[in-house]
C-alpha cells in the first residue's frame, strides 16, 4: 500500500466522510457544517489536482478491494476519468457555496447537505470506477442519494416527482445490472480497457453483444435523458435550485453520459462498436433527442422547465459526438461533457437567484429583470450564448469539433442537426435575453427580498459569475495546456488505434 493505491479512495472518502459526519450533526451547527462542506470540497480539489498532474506524467493510481471471488471493486485514475472527476470536484465547490447561501435558515439542512455530499461521492465514484461493477455500484448510489434531494421540500408534488424519478432510474439500473452480469458470464472480466475488451470474443457472440449494448445504453440513457427516456427530468424541477444545478450539470445526467462514453470506448471499443453497427442508430437517437427536446423547450414558460429541456437536448450532443466514429467528433463530445456542465450550471444558478431574490419562476415575469439584477443576467447571457454556440464561448468549441468530426467521418447529415439545433437554441434563449434586458419592468416583482449591498446575497451571486467567466475562458483559452479541449485530445489518442 502506498500513495498511488490510496489516492483514488481518498478522493471518494473526502466527501463520503463529510456526508456521514454531517448526517449526525445537530441542525443548528451551521458554521461547523459549512466548514466541513467547504473543507471537504477544497481537499477534494487539491487531491484531484495532484492526481491530474500524476496521470499526465504517466502515474498509475488504482485502489482495489475484493467484492466477490474473481471480482474486485476498482477505483482507477485514467485520462477519461480525470475529465469527469475534475469537473465534478470543481463544480461541487461552487455548488456548495451556492447551496449554503440558498438554504440559509431553511429546515433540515443536515439531511440536505448529507445527501448532497453523498451525491458527489457517488459522482466521483462513477468517474473513478475501473470496472463495470464498480460503476454500477456508484451509479445506483447516485440514484439513491439524489432521491431525498428531490423530495426534500416534502410537498405532494415533490413526492410525485421523486416517484417518477425512481421509476425511471431503478428500471434503468435493473437493465444495467442484467447487461453487466450477462457480459461477465461471457467474458469473465469487467475491467475498463482503452479500446475495449470485447473485440477478441468469438464472432458467434456478436448478436448477443448487440443486445447487451442496447441494454447498457438503455439503462444509462435513462439518466442521460435520451429521448424517450427523459420524462423524469423536467418533473424533477420541483427540487431546490442547487439540486437542479447538480442534477443537470454535474451529477445525474452526466453520470449517464459518462457511462455511455465508458461503454462505447472502454467496454466495446469505438472501432468494434462501429463494426457491430450500433453507433449509427445511437447517433440517430441522439440527433432526434437534440431536435425534439429543443422544440419542447420553445414552448415552456416555466424557466426551469425550459432549461430542463435544454439539458435533455445538450447532453445528447455528448452522445452524438461519441457515436460519430472519428477522433474529431470524440473530442467534441468529450469536451462538451465539461463545457455543457459549466454553462448549464451558470444558467441554473441564475434561475435560482431570480426565484430566490424576486420570486420569478416564469419567463413571462422576467420583463426588465436585467436592470434589477445586472450581474446575474450578465452571467445568464454568457451561459445562453454559450449554449447557442456563439464564438468565442465554450459551447462554440464543442460544436465546432462535432461538426468537423461529422465531416471527417462522412456523416454530413449531422451538420444539419447541429445547425437546426443552434437555431432552436437561439429560438428559446434569445427571447429570454430580449425581455430581460430590453423590456420595461412590470412594476413590482412577485416576491422581492433584500440582501444588503449587492443585487442578491453574495454566496448566490459569486458562483454564477465565476462559472460564466469560466465558460468564457474555456472558449478563449481552449488550446492552453490542461484545458478540457487539450485533455480530450489526449484521451482521444488513447482510444483510437494508431
Amino acid at each position, binding site marked *: 500500500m502506498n500513495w498511488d493505491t490510496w489516492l483514488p479512495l481518498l478522493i471518494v472518502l473526502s466527501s463520503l466522510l463529510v456526508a456521514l459526519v454531517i448526517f449526525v450533526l445537530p441542525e443548528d451547527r451551521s458554521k461547523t457544517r459549512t466548514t466541513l462542506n467547504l473543507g471537504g470540497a477544497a481537499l477534494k480539489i487539491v487531491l484531484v489536482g495532484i492526481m491530474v498532474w500524476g496521470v499526465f506524467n504517466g502515474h498509475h493510481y488504482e485502489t482495489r478491494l475484493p467484492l466477490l471471488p474473481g471480482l474486485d*471493486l476498482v477505483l482507477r485514475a485514467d485520462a477519461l476519468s480525470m475529465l469527469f472527476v475534475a469537473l465534478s470536484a470543481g463544480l461541487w465547490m461552487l455548488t456548495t457555496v451556492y447551496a449554503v447561501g440558498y438554504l440559509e435558515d431553511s429546515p433540515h439542512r443536515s439531511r440536505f447537505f448529507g445527501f448532497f455530499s453523498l451525491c458527489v461521492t457517488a459522482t466521483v465514484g462513477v468517474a473513478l470506477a475501473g470496472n463495470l461493477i464498480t460503476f454500477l455500484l456508484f451509479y445506483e448510489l447516485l440514484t439513491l442519494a439524489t432521491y431525498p434531494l428531490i423530495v426534500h421540500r416534502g410537498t405532494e408534488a415533490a413526492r410525485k416527482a421523486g416517484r417518477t424519478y425512481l421509476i425511471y432510474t431503478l428500471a434503468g439500473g435493473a437493465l444495467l445490472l442484467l447487461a453487466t*452480469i450477462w457480459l461477465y458470464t461471457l467474458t469473465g472480466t469487467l475491467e475498463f480497457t482503452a479500446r475495449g475488451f470485447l473485440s477478441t470474443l468469438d464472432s458467434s457472440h456478436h448478436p448477443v453483444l448487440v443486445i447487451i449494448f442496447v441494454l447498457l445504453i438503455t439503462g444509462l440513457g435513462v439518466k442521460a435523458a435520451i429521448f424517450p427516456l427523459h420524462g423524469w427530468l423536467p418533473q424533477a424541477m420541483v427540487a431546490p435550485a442547487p439540486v437542479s444545478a447538480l442534477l443537470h450539470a454535474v451529477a445525474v445526467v452526466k453520470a449517464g453520459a459518462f457511462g455511455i462514453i465508458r461503454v462505447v470506448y472502454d467496454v466495446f471499443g469505438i472501432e468494434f462498436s462501429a463494426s457491430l453497427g450500433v453507433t449509427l442508430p445511437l447517433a440517430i437517437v441522439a440527433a432526434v433527442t437534440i431536435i425534439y427536446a429543443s422544440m419542447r423547450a420553445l414552448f415552456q414558460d416555466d424557466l426551469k422547465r425550459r432549461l430542463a429541456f435544454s439539458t435533455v437536448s445538450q447532453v445528447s450532443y455528448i452522445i452524438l459526438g461519441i457515436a460519430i466514429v472519428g477522433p474529431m467528433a470524440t473530442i467534441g463530445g468529450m469536451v462538451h461533457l465539461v463545457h455543457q456542465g459549466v454553462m448549464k450550471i451558470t444558467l441554473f444558478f441564475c434561475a435560482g437567484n431570480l426565484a430566490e431574490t424576486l420570486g420569478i419562476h416564469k419567463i413571462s415575469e422576467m420583463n426588465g429583470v436585467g436592470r434589477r439584477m445586472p450581474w446575474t443576467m450578465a452571467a445568464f447571457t454568457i451561459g445562453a450564448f454559450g449554449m447557442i454556440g456563439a464564438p468565442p464561448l465554450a459551447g462554440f468549441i464543442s460544436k465546432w469539433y462535432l461538426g468537423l468530426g461529422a465531416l471527417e467521418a462522412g456523416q454530413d447529415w449531422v451538420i444539419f442537426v447541429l445547425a437546426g439545433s443552434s437555431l432552436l437554441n437561439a429560438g428559446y434563449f434569445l427571447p429570454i435575453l430580449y425581455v430581460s434586458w430590453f423590456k420595461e419592468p412590470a412594476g413590482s416583482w412577485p416576491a422581492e427580498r433584500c440582501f444588503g449591498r449587492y443585487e442578491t446575497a453574495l454566496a448566490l451571486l459569486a458562483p454564477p459569475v465565476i462559472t460564466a467567466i469560466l465558460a468564457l475562458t474555456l472558449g478563449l483559452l481552449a488550446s492552453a495546456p490542461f484545458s478540457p479541449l487539450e485533455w480530450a485530445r489526449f484521451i482521444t489518442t488513447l482510444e483510437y488505434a494508431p
Partner: protein
Amino acid sequence: MIEMHWVVIVILLPLTGAVVCFLWPRQTVVSGLITAVGLFASVLGLTWQVLEQGALRYAVGGWGAPLGIDLYVDGLSLLMLIVTAVVGLAISVYSSAYFRLDRAKHFWPLWLFLWAALNALFLSADIFNIYVTLELMGLAAVALVALSGGANALTAAMRYLLVSLLGSLFYLMGVALLYHSYGSVDIAILSQRVESSPAVWVAIGLMVAGLLLKTALFPLHFWLPPAHSSAPAPVSALLSALVVKASFYILLRLWLEVFPLTNTVPGQFALGQFGLAQILGLLGAAAVLWGGIQALRQTRLKLLVAYSTVLQIGYLFLAFPLASIIGWKAALYLLLAHAVAKTAMFMAAGNILFYGGHDRIADLDRVAQRLPLTLSAFGLAGISLMGLPPSGGFIAKWLLLEAAIRSGQWWWGLMLIVGGLLTGAYVFKVIGYAFTRSDLPHEPGFVPKRMEWVALVMALLAIVLGLFAPLPLALLEIGSPFGESLR
C-alpha cells in the same frame, strides 16, 4: 488446551437461560440479555473451532447413533447458527427496551426456548431429531405471536399453530416412510442408502409439502402475513428472519443430501428431481410476483413488510431449478442478507408504531424528520432487499443472476429483476410518505434510543454484507455441504 464442547453449549445455554428467566421473572431481562451475549460468544467459539478443525460430528453424552443423538456442524449449519446469533442478539437488545415487565416475563423464556430449538435444529444430524426441534420451535413461535393478546393476534396465532402442526405431521409421515425403507434416520446414512422407489417418492412428496407449508411458499403463505404482522415487532422480526428460514434449511439439507439418489438408475430420479425443482422454481416466481404486488397494495406498514417476506421467500426457491453450487451459495447469501435486513425493517416498523401509535402508511406524517435514525434503518434495509449495491442483497442477487445466466435459464434471473423493482416500489412508497405531511397530526410517543440504534446497526450490517462477501462465502465451503452430486 481443554477442548470446549461448543456444539452442546449453544443448545444448553439458551435452555438453561429460558428456565432461569421463567423462574425469576423479576430479573428476566437481565438474565435474558446475559444469555444472549453468552450465546453469541459461544457461537463465535464454535465458529473458531470449525474454522480450525473443519466439519464436526458430535455424539451427545458419548452415545452414538442409532441410540444416541448425533450433532453435526458444517459450513451450512454454521452459517445458520451465525445468522441466528447475530439476529438473536439484536432482537434481545431491542426487546429489552420494547416490552414492559408484564410482557417481558413471558417473552424471554419463550424466546430463549425458540433460540435453543433453532440451534438444535441446525445442528441435528438426523431427520427425527429435526422433527422434534421443529415442533419445539413451532410451539414457542406460536406462543410468541399470541403474546400481544387481542383478537387479531390470537386468531393469527391459532391459525399459525394449526398450520405448523399440519406441516410437522406431513414431515413426520415422510420420516416414518424413510425409516421403514432404510432403517435409519441419520442424514449421512440415508444419503448413501436412498434409492428411487414409490415409498421414497411418497416420503419426499409429504416432507416437501410439509416444509413448504412451514416456509410459507406461495400459495401456502396465507398464514404468514396475519401472524407476522400482528405479533409484537421483535417477534415479527425473528419470525421473518429466522423461523421461516429454519424450515427452508431443512428442505435444503434434504434436497442436497437425502434426495439426490446418486446410485439410482441413471436419469430416472434425476429427471424426477429436475421436475420438482422446476415446480419449486415456478412457485418461487409466483411468490415473487404475488408477494410484491400484495406488499404494494397494503395500507399498513407491518403487513407490507410481512408480504415482503413472502416475496423474499420466493427468491430463495429460484435457486432450486438452477441447481449449481453458485446458485445455492446465492440462496444462502440471500437468506443471510434478508434475515439481517428484515430484522432491521420490522424493528423500524415497530419504532414507527411505538411513535405514532399506528402504522397506516399514508399517515406517516414526516417520520423522516422525527425519527431520522429509524427511517434511515428502513431505507438501508430496503436497499438490501431491493438488491441495490452495495449491500448483502446485491451480492446474492448478482450470484443468483450469474447462476441463472450460466445455466441458460435466464428467465429465473428475470424474476429477480422484477422482484427488485417491485421491492423498490413498495419501499419507496413508504419513504415517500415519510417525507410528506399528513392530515392527521398525532401526539408523538417516546421511542427509546436503544430501539432506534439497534435497527440502524442491523440495517448497516445488511449494507456491509455487500462489502465482505468473500468471508461468509468461504465459510459455506466447510465440509462441502453442496457436494459434487450436483448437475
